[in-house]
């Protein structure tokens, strides 16, 4: 989304969602992945808003939906292009906004001409009339319509194109720069926003300042009193390939269970094993830490001072309540010590000092001081000066001042791995409410085993019947990359031909041994949402093995 309208972040505040007239939720199992955001969505519905859910699965949120577009996996672009097609054909788009705030409209109009609702219906498996009605309703709610999306949109090999097709629709509807109207990626992890804000990206210095933009590198060289590398870096996905080819020889991994969370576990493990020297800094002996040469014990959030930035760009203070256990140290303390040993000359001692240096170099956060955070609570960036109140919704002024959003014509790209006779089912992965990510934290809280005791492969009753499966039966799920054993749960939450799994029980079921290592060619986000698999009954697979 950054390509089109500047920054990849929620344009609205979470609370604003409750005041919308229409919510279009695409590829987001909000009630389970972001329960507290789903409360604001449900409140909007109670206030009379329309809720249109676009998802192949019958998620809990679909019970609240005024319409559920149950699309085939990986067909988001045809759908969004068709919605744009209807809005343009029926002259329902926001003329004023498109003329004053955007560029590239005529190219888009030409591009989506062939994406008729009839064509999209065939590809997406959604009734023609539903597509037309959705476009009309979205257009009617112009200025009060918000789109929310998560990994169901981005975790595809065409993820960045998916996002562009979503943003196209937002611009046609004139839904930028307004309260209660926008395009909102809901961020997954507690500080995924802050990690990117801080410049932990191969192309960006803190505050999304591009390394290759004239003047940026020089500014940081002066402030840090040191020369900066000129060439942009490589992403994690690329690095993993280069590890296997011996080009990356050392890695420093902080707080990430790469082996379990990354696609194609076998590939990730082989990559790390091929690397000469690995440092892992974490709170537990994760599967990734086991592969390390040096393991450093870090402090948890309860032992650390600092900030998290949430999905709505709100910087909030995290405060240490206790001392780190044993000899563990906070991530900040460890890195300050390490940098000192590497001869980095800096006058920093505390998290507060670090934040002050960061905000002095990044105008997006300059006005956010710890003092203000203590007094006012969280503040939403951009916040350029200390008397700036923060920014609840984005693009209010930029659009007015003629900074345009760019329409990006994009085409349908099917998932990289298609089903075939040998692997006839699609595996899609996601989250459940009572487990988190790889389970290193929820797996250690008592009582959670009662809510979801183990991994489950959700499968449609029709498919279960065809395969002669009974509820709870342990089966083998295999892809071209590996196989796992898992109990089945028969439910019509999953559409025909598709099974769903999370990845929170790595000790028993390493779901990511199955997933594809295809990834989006712009952002390099892995295609977790679609890969081809096969289901075998255990007796059969054992018999075959013999």
């Amino acid at each position, binding site marked *: 989304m950054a390509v089109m309208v500047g920054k990849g972040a929620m344009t609205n505040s979470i609370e604003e969602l409750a005041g919308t007239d229409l919510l279009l939720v695409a590829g987001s199992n909000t009630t389970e992945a972001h329960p507290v955001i789903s409360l604001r969505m449900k409140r909007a519905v109670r206030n009379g808003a329309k809720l249109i859910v676009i998802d192949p699965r019958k998620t809990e949120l679909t019970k609240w939906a005024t319409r559920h577009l149950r699309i085939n996996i990986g067909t988001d672009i045809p759908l969004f292009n068709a919605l744009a097609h209807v809005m343009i054909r029926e002259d329902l788009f926001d003329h004023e906004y498109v003329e004053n705030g955007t560029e590239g409209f005529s190219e888009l109009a030409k591009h989506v001409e062939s994406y008729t609702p009839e064509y999209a219906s065939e590809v997406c498996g959604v009734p023609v009339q539903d597509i037309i009605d959705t476009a009309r309703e979205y257009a009617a709610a112009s200025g009060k319509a918000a789109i929310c999306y998560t990994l169901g949109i981005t975790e595809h090999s065409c993820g960045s194109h998916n996002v562009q097709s979503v943003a196209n629709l937002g611009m046609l509807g004139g839904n930028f720069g307004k309260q209660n109207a926008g395009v909102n990626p809901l961020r*997954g*992890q507690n500080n995924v926003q802050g990690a990117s804000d801080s410049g932990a990206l191969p192309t960006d210095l803190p505050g999304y300042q591009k390394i290759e933009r004239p003047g940026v590198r020089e500014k940081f060289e002066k402030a840090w009193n040191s020369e900066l*590398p000129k060439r942009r870096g490589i992403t994690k996905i690329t690095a993993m390939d280069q590890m296997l080819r011996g080009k990356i020889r050392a890695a420093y991994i902080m707080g990430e269970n790469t082996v379990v969370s*990354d696609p194609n576990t076998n590939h990730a493990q082989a990559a790390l094993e091929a690397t000469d020297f690995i440092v892992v800094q*974490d709170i537990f002996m994760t599967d990734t830490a086991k592969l390390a040469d040096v393991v450093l014990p870090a402090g948890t959030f*309860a032992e650390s001072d600092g900030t998290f930035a949430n*999905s709505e760009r709100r910087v909030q203070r995290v405060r240490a*309540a206790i001392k780190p256990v044993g000899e563990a140290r906070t991530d900040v303390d460890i890195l300050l010590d390490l940098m000192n040993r590497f001869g980095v000359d800096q006058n920093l001692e505390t998290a507060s000092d670090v934040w002050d240096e960061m905000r002095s170099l990044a105008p997006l956060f300059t006005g956010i001081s710890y003092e203000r955070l203590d007094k006012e609570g969280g503040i939403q960036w951009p916040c350029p000066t200390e008397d700036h109140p923060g920014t609840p919704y984005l693009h209010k002024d930029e659009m007015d001042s003629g900074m345009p959003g760019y329409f990006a014509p994009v085409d349908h790209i099917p998932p990289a791995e298609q089903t075939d006779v040998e692997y006839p089912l699609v595996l899609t992965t996601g989250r459940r409410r009572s487990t*988190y990510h790889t389970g290193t934290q929820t797996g250690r809280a008592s009582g959670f085993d009662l809510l979801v005791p183990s991994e489950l492969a959700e499968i449609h009753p029709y498919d279960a019947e065809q395969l002669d499966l009974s509820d709870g039966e342990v089966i083998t799920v295999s892809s071209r990359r590996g196989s796992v054993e898992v109990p089945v749960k028969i439910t019509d939450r999953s559409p025909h031909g598709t099974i769903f799994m999370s990845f929170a029980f790595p000790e028993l079921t390493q779901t990511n041994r199955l997933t594809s290592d295809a990834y989006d060619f712009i952002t390099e986000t892995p295609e977790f949402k679609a890969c081809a698999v096969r289901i075998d009954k255990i007796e059969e697979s054992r018999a075959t093995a013999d």
Partner: protein
Amino acid sequence: MTTEVKNKLNVEINGIEVGCGTGSRVLDAIRAAGFDVPTLCFDERSGPQGTCRMCLVNVEVDGQPQQVAACTAFSSEGMKVETHSDSINQYRKTLLELLLSETSSPANCPKCLSFKKCELHSAAEEYDAKWDAFPSLVPREKAPDPNPFIQRDYDYCISCFRCTNVCNDWEQAAAITVKGRGQDNSIASYFQNNLLDSPCTFCGQCINTCPTGALTDKKIVGTTKADNVERTKSICPYCGVGCGIHLLTEDGELKGTEPDFDAPSRGSLCVKGQFASWEFVKSDERLKYPLIKEDGAFRRASWDQALDLIKAKFTTIRDESGSDSLVCWSSARTVTEANYLMQKFARIGIGTNNIDNCSRT
């Protein structure tokens, strides 16, 4: 949520003038003036009910004396409010004693025995209300519930209905409701099921709105003394919503968490934030000292040994294969400040832009 206040009204609370917006309640004005009254049935998120009558105050409008419930009554221009007259205090004391007669002994109150003094017993202390002033109406119908999170002990229930309102209106889970009428009413899940078999998502909002010991956090009951607990404002460590929490500690030991009602999340939490955000911190499996792998096995090392080894190895590899043969991967789980240091370390400590975070997965 604060809404923009356009028209100002002037109200006098116990002789102190305060300004408040049109459409605001008397309770807002009382709190704005720095006073407080007990509000046992009030949770601002589901709006006033006016049923417990504890917030009754004397008001004078245009010279006419009245008594109104501060949570439901609107402020009007020139209104004079008296919050603690002798007769009102005596009235509150009697009302509290009637409520206390519906509950078990304050000495065993599950909430007061966990992390905060419950609202009922705080008010009883303030107004010197006796538990045994009236004949006891306990025990009431029990709701034994084998779930691992929410302790339900309706011998402490005062039928304020904050829990059912929060569950239905705020959380929109509709897991619990009121069963029966009058003195026979009780809080129940539909068809008297256990919570595990109900639509309950274990968000814990009922625990946190409950003004008594009827609903408590099973994991904390009996582990702390309410008076000794210290609170540290922080943020839930799970998803990108960033709900506010308080970390609860006693003598430097982490004992639990509770939602932060002053944060933008307004006290909301889900099952992870409410019940899974602190036990992992205290897990025996935490890494406690640096480890160095030798001949395929880890051995305990000092920080100096570990960090010096990293320096030596990284430097050797950089000299042999160039700085772009090293990568640093930062974390969406830790604080922004650590991420900032990580990218700075990669860029000027090592000399590479090979820095990425896990935002792609």
